[in-house]
C-alpha cells in the first residue's frame, strides 16, 4: 500500500489508543482521590508527569488539570487533541477504512465537540470518561468486522499495540511518582490502594485477581502488567501482538533477521522474556519502565524509516539496475 497511507493508518490507531488511555488515567486518579487524603499539590502531579507535562502552572488545581488533559486543544496529549488527530488521519484515508468506521469516528468527534459531552463532563464525569474509553473499543470492533484484514489492517494493529504497550508502561510508572509519606507505608492500605488503582485503570483488576488471588505485594501488580502472557494490556502481550502484525506486513520468516524495526522490536521482547520482575525492581522499576518507553519510541522511529519514508534515490537505483 501507499507508504503515506500506511502511516496514517498507523497513527490513527495510536491516537485512538492514546485517547482511551488518557481517559483511563484521569478516571482512576479521580477515584483514588475520593478514598485518600493526598496533599493537594501531589494529587495530579503524577498524571502530568507521565503525560510529559512539566510546566503546567496550575498543577495543584484538580479541575484545571483535568480540563487541560481533557479539553485543551493546544495540549497535544488531551483527549480532544487525540480524538481530533485520530479523526483527521481517518479523514485522509477514508477510502481505506470502512464507511462504518469513518462514520463512527466522525460521530464521536462531533459528540465530543457538542453540548452533550460537555454536559456529561460537568454532571457525570465518571460516565464521561467511561464513554471516552469505550470509543476506542467500539471503533476497533467496527474496524475488525468491516475492514479487510490486509496490509492497512496490519498497520492499524501495529500502531495500536505499540501505543498500548507504551501506555501501560506509563501508567505503571505513575506509581513511582505517587509518593508514599514514608518507606514504612509500603504494603499498607495506602500502598495497596495505589496498586489497585493502577490495575483498575488498565481494566486489570479482575484478570489479576483471577490469577493471583491476592495482592501480597505491590510488585505482583507490576509483574502482571509487564509480563503476563495473556492479559491484553500487559507490555509483553502488546509487543507480541505488534510483532505479529509486523511479520504479516513484511512477510518475514522466523529465521530471517528482518528490517531495522523488526530487529529492535525483537530485542525488546527478548529482553523482557529473559527478565523477571525482581530484575526490573533491582534496576529500579522507574528506570526499567523508562527504558521500555524510550525503546518503544525508537521502534516507532524505525517503523517510520522502514515503511513510511520512501527512499526515492535508493529505489531509482534499483530500478535502473533492472530489479523491479
Amino acid at each position, binding site marked *: *500500500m*501507499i507508504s*503515506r497511507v500506511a502511516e496514517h493508518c498507523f497513527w490513527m490507531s495510536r491516537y485512538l489508543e492514546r485517547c482511551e488511555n488518557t481517559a483511563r488515567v484521569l478516571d482512576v486518579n479521580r477515584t483514588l482521590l475520593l478514598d485518600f487524603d493526598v496533599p493537594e499539590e501531589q494529587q495530579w502531579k503524577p498524571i502530568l508527569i507521565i503525560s510529559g507535562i512539566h510546566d503546567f502552572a496550575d498543577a495543584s488545581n484538580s479541575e484545571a488539570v483535568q480540563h487541560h488533559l481533557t479539553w485543551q486543544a493546544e495540549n497535544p496529549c488531551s483527549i480532544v487533541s487525540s480524538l*481530533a488527530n485520530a479523526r483527521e488521519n481517518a*479523514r485522509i484515508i*477514508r*477510502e481505506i477504512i470502512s464507511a462504518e468506521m469513518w462514520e463512527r469516528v466522525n460521530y464521536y468527534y462531533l459528540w465530543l465537540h457538542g453540548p452533550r459531552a460537555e454536559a456529561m463532563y460537568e454532571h457525570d464525569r465518571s460516565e464521561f470518561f467511561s464513554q471516552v474509553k469505550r470509543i476506542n473499543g467500539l471503533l476497533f470492533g467496527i474496524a475488525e468486522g468491516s475492514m479487510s484484514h490486509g496490509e492497512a489492517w496490519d498497520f492499524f494493529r501495529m500502531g495500536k499495540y505499540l501505543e498500548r504497550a507504551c501506555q501501560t508502561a506509563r501508567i505503571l510508572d505513575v506509581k513511582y511518582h505517587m509518593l508514599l509519606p514514608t518507606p514504612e507505608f509500603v504494603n499498607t492500605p495506602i500502598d495497596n490502594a495505589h496498586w489497585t488503582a493502577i490495575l483498575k485503570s488498565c481494566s486489570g483488576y479482575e484478570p489479576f485477581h483471577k490469577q493471583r488471588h491476592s495482592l501480597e505485594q505491590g510488585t505482583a501488580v507490576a509483574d502482571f502488567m509487564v509480563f503476563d502472557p495473556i492479559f491484553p494490556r500487559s507490555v509483553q502481550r502488546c509487543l507480541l501482538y505488534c510483532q505479529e502484525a509486523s511479520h504479516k*506486513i513484511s512477510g518475514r520468516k522466523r529465521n530471517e533477521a528482518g528490517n531495522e524495526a523488526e530487529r529492535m522490536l525483537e530485542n525488546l521482547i527478548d529482553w523482557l522474556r529473559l527478565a523477571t520482575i525482581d530484575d526490573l525492581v533491582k534496576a529500579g522499576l522507574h528506570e526499567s519502565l523508562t527504558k521500555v518507553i524510550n525503546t518503544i519510541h525508537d521502534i516507532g522511529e524505525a517503523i517510520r524509516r522502514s515503511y513510511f519514508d520512501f527512499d526515492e534515490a535508493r*529505489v531509482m537505483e534499483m*530500478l535502473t539496475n533492472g530489479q523491479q
Partner: protein
Amino acid sequence: MSAPTSTQEPHLWTNYAPHPTAWDELFDGAAEPHDHCQALVQWLGQLEFKQFQERRHTADLVFINQGITFSVYADRRGVEKIFPFDLIPRPVAGDEWDRLEDGLLQRIRAINLFLYDVYHDRRILREKIISEELVVKSKCYRPEMIGFDPPGKQYVHICGTDLVRDPKGQFLVLEDNGRTPSGVSYVLENRVVMKKVFPKLFQQCKVRRVEDYPQRLREAFLSVAPPSAGHAPTIVLLTPGPFNSAYFEHSFLARNMGIELVMGQDLFVHDERVYLKTTRGPRRVDIIYRRVDDDFLDPTVFREDSLLGVPHLMKAYRAGNVTLANAVGTGVADDKAIYPFVEDMIRFYLSETPILKNVPTYICARREDLLYVVDHLDELVVKAVNESGGYGMLMGPSSTVQMRSEFREKILANPRNYIAQPVVTLSVCPTWTDDGLGPRHVDLRPYIVSGQSSWVLPGGLTRTALVKGSLVVNSSQGGGSKDTWVME
C-alpha cells in the same frame, strides 16, 4: 394551488406562491403539475410541515455524521461546512432528457475534435472560424501539447456542462467545465440520502439510476489506458490533498471506483514512467485521474513552486506511458471566450445542426462587443474567462454604480479576460425556506464521461440559490443542491 383537502396542519403546497416570470420545474402556467411531476407533487402534498421537517432533520444528520462536507479550513479544526441539501427533487421528463443527452454528446464530440485540431493542424483557426489570437492567447493554452496524441485521442474524459432553463422552458448552455469539474459526489450522495429519507416515493416515481457513475468512469479510463499498460492497469486519483475543498469528493470517488487516492508526493517519475511509492517498493501507474490543475501538475514544466504535482510527469505523459484525465490543455475549450464558438465547432467538425443552444455571449476581445458591454453593464452578467465558482463576476442588474465603474476599468484594461451575457431568469424549483416552500432559481450540471465512447450520467447536479430572487447558485456563494430526477 393543488392543495389537498384542508386540515388543521398546513401541508407542503399550502403556501407555495409561484414565481411571476420564471419557468417552474414542477408546475405549469396554470399552477398544475407538469405530467412527469404529478406523482411527485401528489405524494409530497400528503406531507405535513412537521413530517417534512423531521425528514429534513434526518437528512442533515446523515450528511453531518458522514462528514459530507465541501469546505475545510486548514487553520481551524472542526470548521467544515455541509453543502446545504434541499429535499424537494428537481425532475426532468424522460423524453426531454433524451434530447439533452443527444445535445451533450454532440457537444463533447465537437469539443474533443476541436482540442485535437488546436494542438495539431489548426484547421479551424486557419479557416478563421475562430480567431487564432483568441486561442493561443488563452491562459489555458498549452504549447507542450502541440503534436502530441493523448491515449485514444481523448481529451475531456469528464465534462460538467452547466445548463440553465429560460422562462420559455428552453435549456441553454451556460458553460462547459472541461478541466477538473467537481460536484458529482454530491449527485451520488444526494440520491443515497433521498432513498433513505423517502424510500416509498421511489417506488411510486420511476427515476433513472445514477449509482453506476464510478464504474462507468473506471471503464472509460481503462478504455484509454496507455499501450504500455498491462492487463490490469493501475488507476490512481491524484488529489491536491486533505485541505482542498473537494477532498471529500476525491476520497469518495477513489473509494467507489476502487482506486488509490494519492498525493503528488506519493508518485515519482523514473525513466519516463510513473511509479507509486508503496510499503513494498515502487508500483507502476498507468492512468492518473488528476484533480490537480495543469498549472500545478509538473513543477519542471509549469509552476515551479508547485508542491502538489509530480516532477517530470509531462515527460512520462509525452512518452505515452501514462494517461492523464482530463488531458493537459483542455482549458482552452472551457475558456469562457471560446465557449461561444462551440456551436460553430459542431457545424465545422460534425456538419450537424447544434441541438443545444448557448446563452448569447459578448466576447470583450471583439471591439464591437466590448463597446456594447461597457455601455450596458447594468443589464449584463460579466464574467472573467478563466474563473469559476461565481468569483470574478458582476451581476449587472443588482450592482451599484461604483461596482460597475470598477468593472468597466477592469474590462477596458484587459478585454480578453472578460465576456458578458444577458441576464437569464433561471427556472425555479420549489425549495424549503423558513416560510415553507418557495420558488428558488436552479441550474443543472450534467456529467459526460468519455473513454473510447461517451456516456451521460442521467441527472446531474442541480444547484439552487437559497436566497429569494438570487440568480447565483454556486456553493461558494451560499447555494445548495437538490437531487435531480430523470424520469423513466
